[in-house]
């Protein structure tokens, strides 16, 4: 069988507390189309309906919201187009997804006995609850993967999902990155903020979910869908300058005119990012570096959010080819993907 091209055909975002005018990077960065984005104050029930949300944790709720927006926008949400969902898979990315349940239940037992815990917490104790809920809610019966891979996890998720389509494991993949914010997340962030921020401020955190829809070229043609962008090559696993990937004559990078780098939030990383930016600009004349700073760490969501931004920019023909790099936060290794516009 032949490898298949992978298209981005839709995306959806759910970021509570995110507003235009407040952040340098906000919903406005995605253009005038508001349909795909839930921001500011919104209730998950308004997007998903009331049914079936009662025991879902915050990460699962946000993931479902973003996915619903992505699927609704592309008209793929149910019905004949979806069929029985066999060729439609899921990759979810989250690190903090269920830590609130895990810590709360452990503390409850420590203070007493297992009879004191609620059995309704069992599903949320399994770290893949986000991925399985996406499958259940939308009837997606293909490969189902939950990636908890640190700060590059979102990019890695897009990569793995694209590979599933490339080799024929799926025709369509839903990729969702999500991180919740709660007292355990805040405590974890403040525990090592001094090392990473070189101050005693807590690391600011932006909770939210980003969903991306990937389809094979044939699936796109079958329903005459609009291609926002194509998913290209991946590089990951090393921060070494010697293995720096963006040198001009590397195949797949011709015509690169934009780069979304990792966050500039951490002073210890800025020297490395400065060096990368310099090399990038040298290798690609006229390169635009697009700072995506959602006023807080987005951790496992970042790579998917970057993909959504890249897709949006390419759809609006702002650029021809966009590279995006996530990872590096707290000592992880970077992951990068290339996205190119549909001509």
């Amino acid at each position: 069988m032949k490898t298949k091209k992978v298209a981005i055909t839709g995306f959806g975002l759910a970021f509570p507390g995110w507003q235009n005018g407040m952040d340098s990077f906000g919903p406005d960065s995605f253009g005038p189309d508001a349909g795909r984005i839930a921001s500011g104050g919104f209730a998950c029930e308004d997007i998903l309906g009331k049914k079936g949300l009662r025991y879902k944790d915050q990460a699962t709720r946000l993931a479902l919201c973003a996915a619903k927006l992505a699927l609704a926008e592309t008209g793929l949400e149910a019905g004949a187009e979806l069929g029985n969902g066999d060729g439609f898979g899921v990759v979810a990315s989250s690190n903090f997804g269920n830590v609130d349940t895990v810590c709360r239940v452990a503390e409850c037992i420590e203070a007493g006995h297992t009879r004191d815990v609620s059995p309704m917490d069992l599903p949320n104790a399994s770290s893949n609850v986000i991925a399985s809920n996406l499958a259940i809610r939308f009837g997606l019966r293909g490969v189902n993967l939950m990636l908890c891979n640190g700060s590059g996890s979102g990019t890695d998720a897009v990569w793995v999902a694209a590979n599933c389509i490339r080799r024929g494991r799926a025709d369509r993949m839903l990729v969702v990155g999500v991180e919740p914010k709660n007292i355990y997340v805040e405590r974890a962030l403040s525990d090592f903020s001094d090392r990473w921020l070189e101050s005693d401020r807590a690391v600011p955190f932006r909770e939210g979910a980003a969903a991306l829809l990937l389809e094979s070229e044939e699936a796109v043609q079958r329903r005459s869908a609009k291609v926002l962008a194509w998913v290209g090559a991946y590089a990951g696993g090393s921060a070494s300058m010697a293995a720096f990937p963006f040198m001009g004559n590397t195949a797949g990078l011709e015509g690169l005119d934009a780069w979304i780098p990792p966050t500039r939030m951490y002073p210890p990383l800025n020297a490395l990012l400065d060096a990368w930016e310099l090399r990038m600009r040298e290798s690609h004349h006229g390169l635009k570096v697009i700072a995506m700073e959602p006023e807080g760490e987005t951790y496992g969501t970042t790579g998917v959010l970057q993909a959504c931004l890249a897709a949006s920019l390419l759809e609006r023909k702002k650029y021809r080819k966009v590279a995006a790099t996530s990872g590096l936060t707290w000592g992880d290794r970077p992951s990068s993907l290339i996205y190119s516009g549909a001509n």
Partner: protein
Amino acid sequence: MTWAKNPSLEENQELEPMGMAITGMGLVTCLGKGKKETFQALENGRTGCGPLTLFEPARFNLTNAYEIRDEAGQAGEPSHRATRWLLQAIAEAVQDAQVDLRNKKVAVVVGTGLRELGSLERWSLSKEAFAVRDLHFGNAVRDFLRLECPVLTFSNACSASNFTLDVAEQLLELEEADLVIAAGTDSITQSMLGLIDRTNSHPPAHLQPFGGETKGVLMGEGAAAVILEKKPKRAGSGNVKAWIRGVGICCDAFHETAPEQAGMEKAMRDAHARSGLSPDEVEVILAHGTGTPLNDGTEAKALTGVFGERMKTIPLLGLKSSIGHTSGASGLAAVITSVLAMDKGLLPPTHGPYSAMEEARDFRIHWETLPFEFRISQVNAFGFGGVNAVVMVEKVDRV
């Protein structure tokens, strides 16, 4: 970072039919800190079931678990258990493969149910310092191997390590890696142990796959790792221990914790189809068999649905009876057990005896070591969320 070997591979390239070669294996369980030790204990009919020592027993109804214990018979060091054994299993596998990783384009894929949440729990209880970056295994693995390579940590519940084989195959097929270390690891966490305890009113003393009387799962701990490469072009070349013929995958999209018979059957048939095998060619089945009526009853019906009357004659091994439910490690632990069994021409017993549930009444479960030559086995793994992954293993005749 280096780009994929052939970035234009995305453009309509012909892919070779796959299957993967296992060139090295490593295994850490409550029965032994290496694959030989574990298999010898299995062959001797031993079980690793014992009293719970990792947590305060007075807080639980259950009394037993399949903990990895130290010389004093206690759970020992509570911190970073899953990470520690993962590295041990990987070390054994790399040693077994006799390979210099620096000459290869390597990726590591780790399947886990609970990642390093055990240490996160201890942090939340103020028992130890913990960095969030250690929740996933990437940094520990890269530091240990001294390799700058992609490491992917998948939290795919009880079928996680079987899923890693599908991801490994993806990376090899698309030439994103020359060599993939696929691994699984899990330790027992207080929250998962506690929630299982809370939802089973009569916890068993032992885990009895397809058991009729005592019902329920008991948690185990362990790690397993295999070194995977593309099938060599010439037969007999390379240090091949066994073949992975194919991996069947699907998601029930049905329930967060309950399994679905149709989904289990679909994964099995997908595994057979991808492997170019008919159900008649399957000679041994290593069941998922968790000891819960829900999984085991559904799995028994699914097996009967696929294999029919042959379920009376195909030997069925319930490995969890001996090593407990090792969650993310369980799929690969069974794959490795199968390879060792193929090499030795014998099947270790399911730890018992006990009477089987109605749905499995006619299954061929053996309570003593069984001399048995076989070439093709099936390893089932079904996880919370309806994530199903079934692996077909084939014997390699060793020189």
